[in-house]
């Protein structure tokens, strides 16, 4: 059991509240920083890819997990970020300017979709974003002058302030730095007024409006911000892929992003990262597993999709709060051992809400 003995309010909303937090996250940071010294180039490349996925998942988590808006079209923002970045770099814009510009372009696209999209909720919003993603995919294929069409577009080698980021180690460190900056920025935002406004809009628009929140503006803003962060991930993704074609940003990527935030646990940035790690590592793990599996199974078409689907079904059925929820339970078990009770986290209905006015 842990009791709060805060003497100042700022202790209550510190990011690292307890000495163990410092130790744990310090250890994690040390591991991530030391990775290039013991990991192979292949592993480093995969880790950079997972970090990029983390950024994209954080972007979607902001929208789906905190503002309650479902998007099935976030691959479009990844694509817009990636193509914008590649195009800008080919025009001679330095990388340090091109990445933020690409994020801004994706954010602008997010605003354009967001303004009409906030009029609809839930399933309808999902359909609007899905349609948007399909349109973007087609546009990229058609707009040969800028995107290279279906032939693709090669991405210039990453270079910043005269330093080449092309080596796996350098690119890994760069992705790590961007991911950490994005994470800290979003965490700061989420524990401030704007983050609370997001949650307010998610849980009750009526009450949010009554408390002085401009619901429309917050929703559109969340759309833009989410698209911008996802576009930033896209810009990094361009370098990871090296050669952009429209089929790199299909519906499957959108679905993977949704899987990440759902499996991770809606409403937590830690969940977004956990989900991204799992979904990012899974294809590699499956391909490794194929060597061990019996031939009939290993050669089965769509094995990956099947595993994705099975995992999603498993989480929806047994752990709706996602990996983050599982993690919180595990932590409580360790902290309160042997006093932990299984019912600690059981959600009980204290009363049934009447649906009189609905």
């Amino acid at each position, binding site marked *: 059991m842990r009791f709060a003995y805060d003497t*100042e*309010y*700022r202790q*209550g*909303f510190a990011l690292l509240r307890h000495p163990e937090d410092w130790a744990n996250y310090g250890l994690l940071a040390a591991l991530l920083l030391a990775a290039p010294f013991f990991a192979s180039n292949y592993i480093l490349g995969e880790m950079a890819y997972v970090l990029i996925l983390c950024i994209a998942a954080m972007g979607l988590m902001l929208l789906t997990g905190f503002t309650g808006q479902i998007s099935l079209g976030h691959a479009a923002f990844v694509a817009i970020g990636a193509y914008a970045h590649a195009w800008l770099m080919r025009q001679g814009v330095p990388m340090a300017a091109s990445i933020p510009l690409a994020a801004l372009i994706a954010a602008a696209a997010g605003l354009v979709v967001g303004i009409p999209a906030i009029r609809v909720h839930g399933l309808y919003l999902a359909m609007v974003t899905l349609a948007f993603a399909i349109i973007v995919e087609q546009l990229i294929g058609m707009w040969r002058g800028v995107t290279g069409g279906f032939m693709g577009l090669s991405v210039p080698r990453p270079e910043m302030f005269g330093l080449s980021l092309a080596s796996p180690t350098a690119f890994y460190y760069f992705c790590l730095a961007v991911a950490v900056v994005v994470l800290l*920025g979003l965490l*700061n*935002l989420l*524990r*401030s*007024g*704007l*983050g*609370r*406004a997001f*949650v*307010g809009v*998610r*849980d*009750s628009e*009526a*009450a*949010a*409006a*009554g*408390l*002085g*929140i*401009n*619901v429309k503006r917050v929703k559109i803003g969340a759309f833009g911000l989410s698209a911008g962060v996802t576009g930033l991930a896209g810009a990094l993704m361009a370098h990871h892929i090296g050669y952009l074609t429209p089929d790199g940003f299909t519906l499957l990527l959108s679905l993977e992003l949704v899987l990440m935030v759902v499996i991770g646990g809606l*409403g937590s940035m830690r969940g977004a990262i956990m989900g991204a790690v799992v979904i990012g590592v899974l294809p590699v793990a499956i391909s490794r597993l194929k060597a061990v599996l019996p031939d009939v199974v290993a050669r089965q078409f769509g094995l990956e999709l099947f595993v994705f689907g099975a995992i999603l079904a498993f989480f929806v059925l047994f752990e709706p709060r996602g990996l983050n929820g599982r993690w919180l339970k595990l932590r409580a078990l360790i902290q309160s051992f042997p006093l932990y009770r299984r019912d600690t986290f059981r*959600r*009980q209905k*204290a*009363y049934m*809400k*009447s649906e*009189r*006015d609905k």
Partner: protein
Amino acid sequence: MNAPLLELRNVSLHFGGLKAISGLSMTVQPGEVLAVIGPNGAGKTSMLNLVTRVFNASGGEMHFKGADLRRVPRHRIAHLGLARTYQNIELFENATVLDNLMLGRQRFDQGRWWQQLLRTPALTRMEEDHRAQVEAVIEFLELSPWRNALIAGLPYGVRKVVELGRALCTQPELLFLDEPASGLNPEETRDLAFWIEDIRADLGITVVMVEHDMSLVNAVADRVICMAQGAVLAEGTVEEVQNHPGVIAAYLGG
């Protein structure tokens, strides 16, 4: 008599052919506790929804401290100093009590977006000020055992109090309570009566409450308005309204 805090003049609200409110005129004086009673469908909650701009009035005038409410967008109502609770409890279910109350501070300065992004020292101080205000409300309503609890796990009675607390966090001049005692047990209702007294006396907030529980109305209301069929039927002290023949007819049929 001083200038009224809130004045409705000949207000109407029509949904197509349905006249929810027609020709409603009433005033709220600063510093009073006004109870609005009336049978179901009388338009009590619709009146609240009109004033807080959930619905657009079909006609008439609404003024709060001289400001024309019909020109104020819904999300600016709180900035004028109007706060409300809801009949069916509109809390932010997947947030803690503390976050819910902090959301009550949204009408005040939350810092520029870049300050929030970077968590500047100035913003930290601002957050601490908001938190201090919230803590004052937590102490006032005795919510400290629930401070970090999720709303989703709270019993009904506590939710009602949290919602009242959230409205108080906006530091309103005029507080609307929509059936504050519905679903509360007698003990909780007595607590509520004391709180309403204190809200008026210590915090200087004018209270308008829509309520069916006549014991609560009796205990705290200075003045009662009885509505029926979208208009004011009777107005006066509790006894006057209770003995008004039209009111008895409206409730019992006649």
